[in-house]
């Protein structure tokens, strides 16, 4: 911003409002409001309600009076704006709603489901980084050579198989050939039975990790090649910095910036995107919580859980963005 220097308070306010950080935060809040409205509207348009979900065809035996009572019980008799505002009011006071099917509050449910997905996402990202960065470096070490082609082809191939297919096939083969089927046992939380928990997480994390390793490998490769071409590398080389130190200290370090950005983004997507894997491997994560709520028409469960996912997504993005700005001040001016 090239605002002229003004000393009036309005000018200061104006500058505050247009300050990039303030603007980003304001945008984030707007985004969350948008997500909540979208969720709310989509849910009301879905055919069926909690009454038919709970009673199924037996709902046909309910009398008009009974239906009316049930509608009141589920809060469906309120006008839509009232339903939205009372839910939003609850959210602002820390009440995420209640799931009558689970017999627990949504906050309680989420507190148990979220760690599962977070753990899965972290493990998947770690795996994807390991595979992706190594693959990217390998590919970039000799662009155009066989290893480049093989790495790139492999990463694209990994991107091309549907997760539910690879997950099912992998799980079945391991179970049948080695009798190893940790996901058939009850889910073991991280803090309960760590060895079993890790066994239950390894396959899903692997399947997810492999599928997102590709963009990370791609980003790494491009970034490394870009930076290698930069003037400061040639300068450093001319100054006699040893090649190995040059590669690690200058090339790799700088190349990691876009890689970290990319991982942050992937992480955000994993929060809601792991649902298929959670389903295949019976992991009680947050994606399944949304899916369950949708099937049973538990509006509060879906609305609140999607909002939680969106908040995390926005936070992760905000954090990546801010870190990025700190690292690379040039971005401020954009």
């Amino acid at each position, binding site marked *: 911003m090239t605002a002229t220097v003004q000393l009036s308070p309005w000018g200061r306010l104006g500058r505050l409002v247009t300050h990039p950080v303030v603007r980003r935060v304001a945008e984030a809040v*707007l985004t969350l409001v948008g997500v909540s409205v979208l*969720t709310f509207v*989509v849910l009301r348009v879905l055919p069926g309600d909690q009454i038919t979900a709970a009673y199924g065809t037996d709902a046909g035996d309910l009398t008009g009076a009974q239906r009316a009572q049930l509608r009141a019980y589920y809060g469906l008799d309120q006008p839509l704006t009232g339903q939205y505002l009372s839910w939003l009011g609850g959210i602002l006071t820390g009440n995420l709603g209640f799931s009558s099917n689970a017999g627990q509050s949504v906050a309680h449910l989420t507190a148990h489901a979220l760690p599962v997905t977070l753990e899965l996402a972290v493990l998947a990202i770690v795996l994807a980084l390991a595979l992706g960065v190594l693959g990217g470096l390998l590919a970039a070490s000799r662009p155009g050579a066989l290893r480049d082609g093989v790495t790139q082809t492999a990463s*694209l191939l990994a991107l091309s198989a*549907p*997760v539910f297919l690879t997950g099912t096939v992998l799980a079945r083969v391991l179970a049948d050939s080695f009798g190893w089927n940790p996901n058939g046992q009850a889910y073991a939380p991280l803090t309960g039975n760590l060895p079993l928990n890790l066994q239950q997480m390894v396959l899903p994390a692997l399947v997810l990790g492999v599928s997102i390793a590709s963009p990370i490998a791609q980003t790494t490769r*491009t970034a490394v090649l870009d930076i290698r071409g930069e003037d400061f590398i040639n300068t450093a080389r001319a100054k006699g910095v040893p090649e190995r130190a040059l590669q690690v200290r200058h090339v790799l370090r700088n190349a990691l910036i876009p890689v970290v950005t990319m991982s942050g983004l992937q992480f955000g*997507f994993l929060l809601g995107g792991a649902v298929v894997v959670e389903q295949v491997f019976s992991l009680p994560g947050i994606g399944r919580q949304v899916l369950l709520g*949708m099937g049973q028409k538990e509006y509060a469960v879906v609305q609140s859980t999607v909002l939680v996912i969106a908040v995390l997504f926005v936070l992760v993005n905000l954090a990546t963005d801010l870190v990025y700005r700190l690292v690379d001040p040039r971005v401020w001016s954009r």
Partner: protein
Amino acid sequence: MSVLPSQRPRPLASAAPPARRHPLLRGLVRNRSGLIGAVLTLVVVVTSAAGLLGTLPYDPATQDVSAALTAPSGQHWLGTDQFGRDVFSRVAAGLGSSLLVAAGAVAVSGAVGVVLGVVAGYFGGVLDRVIGVLTNVLFAFPSLLLALALAATLSRSRATVALAIAVVYAPIFVRVARGPVLTLRGADYVIAATAVGQRRLATLFTHVLPNMRGIVLVQITLSLSWAVLTEASLSFLGFGTPPPAASLGVMVFDARTLSSVAPWLLAGPGVALIVFVFGLNLLGAGLRDALDPRAGDRR
């Protein structure tokens, strides 16, 4: 699917010079993986066209119960399903169906997304902010769950599945288009054109848009592959393309159960699905390299 594509559009390194003729095509042919991708995609398109033109060995919907669940043979190259339908013909039709859904989804999301992105990038201001927030809302909503919810609200058909996927992908096109427009808007030759007296809108059409063709084309190719996988994932979650239309996602999903007695039911569509998506991915990567030489074979 897996996860939403997430590459943020990389802004073009420098403002590109005015378009040359077919630089993309030439680059693509020079690029090995891109060429393979193009060939694979072509094979898929030809195969699915065979389905549309009715030149398949069997009608994909015709049932012959006496030949149910037979293993692959000279007569039925990929075997038959429990209705005695020819799996090869269904795979070919399924490729066409998946291609239609994906192409429909990408066409809609691409058109809407690019227009919004260009408007946001070129005119900036309040429009840019509003479009930005809308985009962010769709990004922050878990993509597959959004597609699922949308598919469930509408009556089930190929068109609605495509529409649901389109809504999820539109924001990606917004971002893809907005970035380069921003960069191009500041490019010397565009500024020069405006200075010479060309009207803003005219500049947009003569100088800005032609230079975006490449990056949008790459995004379209990549989005096609994601759309195919998304359609398959929706089938897995119970909201895929309805029967009797054969879609690869539904076929793979159904075969998951039957595969213990008839593995060919999984093999045919499974391999076809992977090859199809792989081809699109290769093509996309090849196009990207051809477009942006920095990423390509550089020694």
